[in-house]
């Protein structure tokens, strides 16, 4: 797709793209190249002594059972966040699509969590689930549940999943709602005349028509769980207990910033870059050909 009508200038287009390109080069490309370079180095925290160690950082990484564990945790976390987020939002969107009275009010009440920063979402839920003072903890204890996510890894995972899903519901909801509203009413009506009940109609017509949206949201939610949930984790469990919520991004941050391990952290960055590239390719290859070039 190209414009037929174009302007001509030897310098103007360069001037126009210059700011974007400058920022891209300085803050994206240069650091990315540096990350690759650093991943071959071993350096002390102060940067006083540097050695080239080849692939040693990568070897150490993949021999570290806790790094591999972090992959599993990230996968579990993403599946839980994406899966439950999508199911809940689809249910809400299907209901919101059905009601006429109060539709706008419901929509408004369901979309505001999008405005909440992931870190704050984490803090809100951590407060309600706080082991000694939380209001939900209190209710759970009354019901005989021993709730202490500070030491129980499964509970910690549950907490961060709840906070992350809560934060992401609005987004999924809006896309499902838009998807539902774009389904031609005539299709539904035809099925209804054929005698199909609402549940069957949903299963045989609505769901298949929504599958592109669902697949798109699946990828977006996985990307969200991989990266944007950093705030949720950092403000609540900080990867604990016993590494039960240490997702890959959190480990990069921890090793690089808190532990001052430049090489190890950069090697993880490089691995993550591969993951993002794969996800981006999937997103563009299979979902939406936004970029037709």
């Amino acid at each position, binding site marked *: 797709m190209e414009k037929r009508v174009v302007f001509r200038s030897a310098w103007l287009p360069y001037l126009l793209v210059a700011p974007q390109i400058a920022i891209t080069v300085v803050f994206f490309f240069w650091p990315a190249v540096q990350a690759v370079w650093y991943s071959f180095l071993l350096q*002390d*925290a102060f940067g*006083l002594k540097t050695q080239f*160690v080849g692939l040693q950082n990568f070897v*150490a990484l993949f021999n570290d059972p806790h790094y591999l564990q972090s992959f599993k945790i990230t996968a579990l976390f993403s599946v839980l966040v994406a899966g439950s987020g999508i199911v809940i939002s689809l249910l809400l969107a299907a209901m919101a699509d059905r009601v006429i009275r109060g539709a706008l009010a419901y929509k408004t009440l369901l979309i505001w969590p999008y405005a909440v920063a992931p870190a704050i979402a984490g803090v809100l839920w951590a407060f309600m689930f706080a082991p000694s003072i939380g209001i939900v903890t209190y209710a759970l204890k009354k019901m005989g549940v021993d709730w202490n996510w500070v030491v129980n890894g499964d509970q910690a995972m549950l907490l961060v999943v709840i906070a992350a899903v809560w934060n992401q519901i609005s987004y999924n909801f809006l896309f499902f709602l838009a998807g539902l509203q774009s389904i031609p009413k005539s299709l539904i009506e035809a099925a209804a005349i054929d005698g199909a009940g609402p549940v069957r109609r949903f299963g045989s017509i609505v769901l298949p028509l929504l599958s592109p949206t669902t697949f798109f949201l699946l990828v977006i939610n996985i990307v969200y769980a991989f990266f944007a949930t950093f705030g949720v984790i950092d403000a609540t469990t900080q990867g*604990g207990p016993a590494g039960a919520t240490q997702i890959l991004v959190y480990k990069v941050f921890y090793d690089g910033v808190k532990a001052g391990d430049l090489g190890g952290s950069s090697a993880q960055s490089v691995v993550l870059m591969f993951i993002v590239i794969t996800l981006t390719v999937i997103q563009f290859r299979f979902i939406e050909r936004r970029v037709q070039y």
Partner: protein
Amino acid sequence: MKRKAIAAALLGAGLITLGSAQAATEIQWWHSMGGALGERVKAIAEKFNASQKDYTVVPVYKGSYPVSMTAAIAAFRAKNPPHIVQVYEVGTATMMAAKGAIVPVAKVMKDSGEKFDPKAYLPTVTGYYTDLKGNMLSLPFNSSTALFYINKDAFKKAGLEPVAPKTWKELRAVAEKLKAAGQACVYTTSWPSWVHVENFSAWHNVPIGTKQNGMGGFDTVFEFNSPLHVRHIQMLADMAKQGLFVYAGRTSQGDAKFAGGECAMFTGSASAIGGIKKAGKVDWSVNFLPYHDDVKGAPQNSIIGGASLWVMAGKPKGDYTGVAKFLGFLSLPETQVEWHTGTGYVPITLAAYEQTRASGFYDKNPGFDMAVKQLTLHNPTANSKGLRFGNFVQIRDIIKEELEAAFSGKKDAKAALDDAVKRGNDTLRKFQAANK
């Protein structure tokens, strides 16, 4: 263009007048003392600034220990470090290895001719921050140790004599009675690694690692998976399972659980006293750490925790005279007595300790001398002088992770400690390689 030149000239003139008004040399001091402790730090700096005209110490709160340490390292890499930075004890080996980034305190004092007698300091405190040749590398600032607290009210309610159990065996027996009497949280702890691995080892006179707990060189390996360590951690894990021990978290989370009256027994820092007093909710006593009485040589002495002040390199030469003067001021008995009695941290000089005792402060405030007493119970051995492991910031987190695995029943104590030792050794080797 012209307007710009005028603006520049005006700005320049402004800077000059500002500069001349500020004749005293500024000394940046980054610290991690929030809240009430931060006020104390400010007061110390103000007192020093009022005592002379040539230097102005500017204390800056930089956030928690790891945050301010990271900030100092980043500032060094960006070539603009502060003069003095407060670093917590686990960062000691990292700072020490950074030759070229730091200036040893002994050298700062010597170069400026400031009066300095290393023997005046408490050996268990300075031992932690001194190299094998006896040079003090950083100045201990806030030092505490792990102590054992009990809630007397809870004891009485359970029909028990309000006296702290001396051994772990006794503690466990008491714990069962408290539990039977309906106490929901019987025992908790802050700083699990510091209390139950580091101090535990020193207190029982067993090594944490080879080479005098790492003080003898970078090629040290961990040894805290001995049968004694395993037995202790297994005991805690069993207690957790029985509901006798509630895990509170990786740092000082246990403090509030005890101060609020939730838990009947608690091990944590000596500096928790302030918070417990301020909350004023429980009738408490502070005691020596419990020990296993079948271990020969226990109890030995405990080790310190807290932070010390490091002098960073790369500042104008003249500034270091001011730094030395300030460090000298900090070591004065008067400064130390005020700090000690105001915060609960131990004094760093013998003179300050004696002066506090002579003033009758300990009689009026029982418990404030408990830390010093426990630290100096016996002459420190190679196992109880302190520890010095590279990358210990990470290693302590590894230990905490593995302890969490043990306490939650995911692993047995042996497996958890073996894994902690293995992962810890890997991290030590990395440090050794990076600092060749």
